């Protein structure tokens, strides 16, 4: 039984963590403007998150400690604090985007204004984080998030010229009416959507919550190398249906409603209803992950008791941070800032914050003092070093490109 739940953790982190509001919006938006000429960025992001999550999962399994616990220990309190502030703010921004995403998805199902739904979503998130068992939380949203496969069904029903699709992906060329900076801005946005830091905080802390040990490393690797590519494929399907239906109609995605339209066009009402369920499950699952990650990062830095495996009374400061992050997230969405805009910023700032935790985890994953015999192998080190360069370049280029292109205008 333990092994099945182990794989469930992987699927949840892949679907819930991978396909979240950031992926839904960014992939649909990029598909509707650039067709499939930016799919390479998602694929690079998928390989990156596989490496990064595998390393941090292995670190959690061997040391039994979360990411920020080790980041502070390895970098000292000063650099650790700057790291914590940046990562916490990005995670909080993503948390707000996820809460907004759940409300927008429910608005599509009920046509009730999303601002009325947000407080109810906030209470539901708090209830699930507070009362629902960690493994139950994983399984429900992991499996529910799987229904997003309906995007694959929609793609198949559109029966596209698969050869042409493959050509667009393998030989990407920028659409003529889009400038190069905007093209690369959205490459970084896709990369940030695929490699959001909170996925790693949640994945490694989840490993500690599940009390992983050395023998769980295989499960962890299966989770990562099955789970994330599955999430990546869904993201590509979301981009593909947008490219096939929205791009020819000159529709540029800026609302969640537009993201679902291709599914309706291709496969009708039932498929769209399933897609909406998928939106709600993926964004709600991701809201739980980002909410918990807000608590994990702060509690692990200060050394407070954290985690759902202990009674809330024994981890009061952890739960208070989660509660305050939830109030801040709900508050941000209630200021009527467009949640889709929040999402676009959250994925780009994810790309900015990535090296801060990737570098220390890479150093720790190679340190025999921490990892004993389970340090990185030669191949994973080679790939991890390449990704270190990619991640730093993306992080440095993200903000100048954002300013220059006025956030991809």
């Amino acid at each position: 039984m333990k092994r099945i739940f182990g794989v469930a953790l992987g699927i949840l982190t892949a679907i819930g963590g991978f396909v979240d509001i950031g992926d839904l919006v960014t992939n649909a938006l990029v598909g509707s403007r650039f067709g499939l000429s930016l799919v390479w960025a998602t694929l690079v992001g998928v390989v990156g998150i596989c490496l990064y999550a595998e390393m941090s999962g292995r670190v959690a399994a061997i040391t039994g400690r979360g990411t920020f616990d080790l980041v502070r220990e390895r970098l000292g309190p000063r650099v650790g604090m700057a790291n914590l502030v940046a990562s916490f703010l990005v995670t909080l921004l993503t948390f707000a985007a996820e809460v907004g995403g759940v409300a927008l998805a429910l608005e599509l199902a009920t046509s009730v204004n999303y601002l009325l739904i947000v407080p109810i979503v906030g209470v539901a998130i708090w209830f699930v984080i507070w009362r629902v068992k960690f493994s139950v939380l994983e399984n429900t949203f992991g499996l529910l998030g799987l229904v997003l496969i309906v995007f694959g069904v929609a793609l198949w029903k559109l029966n596209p010229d698969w050869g042409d699709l493959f050509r667009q992906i393998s030989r990407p060329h920028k659409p003529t009416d889009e400038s190069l900076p905007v093209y690369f801005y959205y490459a970084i946005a896709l990369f940030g959507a695929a490699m959001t830091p909170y996925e790693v905080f949640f994945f490694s802390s989840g490993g500690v919550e599940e009390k992983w040990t050395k023998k769980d490393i295989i499960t962890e690797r299966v989770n990562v190398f099955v789970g994330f590519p599955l999430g990546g494929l869904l993201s590509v399907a979301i981009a593909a249906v947008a490219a096939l239906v929205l791009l020819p109609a000159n529709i540029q995605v800026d609302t969640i409603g537009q993201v679902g339209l291709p599914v309706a066009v291709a496969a009708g009402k039932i498929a769209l209803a399933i897609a909406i369920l998928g939106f709600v499950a993926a964004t709600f699952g991701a809201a739980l992950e980002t909410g918990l990650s807000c608590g994990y990062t702060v509690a692990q830095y200060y050394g407070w008791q954290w985690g759902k495996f202990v009674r809330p009374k024994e981890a009061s400061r952890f739960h208070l941070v989660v509660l305050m992050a939830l109030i801040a997230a709900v508050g941000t969405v209630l200021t009527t800032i467009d949640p889709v805009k929040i999402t676009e910023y959250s994925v780009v700032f994810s790309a900015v914050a990535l090296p801060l935790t990737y570098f220390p985890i890479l150093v720790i994953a190679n340190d025999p003092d921490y990892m004993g015999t389970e340090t990185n192998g030669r191949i994973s080190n080679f790939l991890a070093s390449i990704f270190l360069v990619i991640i730093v370049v993306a992080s440095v280029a993200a903000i100048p490109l954002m300013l220059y292109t006025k956030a991809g205008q």
Partner: protein
Amino acid sequence: MSAAREFDLELHLLDRQVVDADGRMVSKVDDLELNLDDGGNPYVTAILVGPRALGPRTGGHLGRWMTAIAARLAGSQDPPRIDFGHVVDIGEEIKLGCRVDDLDVQSLEDWIREKVISRIPGSNHAS
């Protein structure tokens, strides 16, 4: 413990996770209290925990701000201390021989538990 083990304070002690006898997380080693032995050599007498210990080491606005608020709240500059006598193992984590409730080092945690968390129903239901 092997005879007279040798290690580095910052590397092996500072910022490590302190865990109590039941395995519950107490705090990080935010700083260490040193006193002089009769030979004039400093030795570690206690683990210092909390913002008043961590603040000066974090430095910058956040560090000073953290220290100042904590000092005002607690009414003293000296951070809570865990006597080094409680330490039973220095390894991946710093293990204590006693339980965290016996030490008076988590005033903020206790305050929040009383005033906020235990007021919410289901706060002693592990999930």
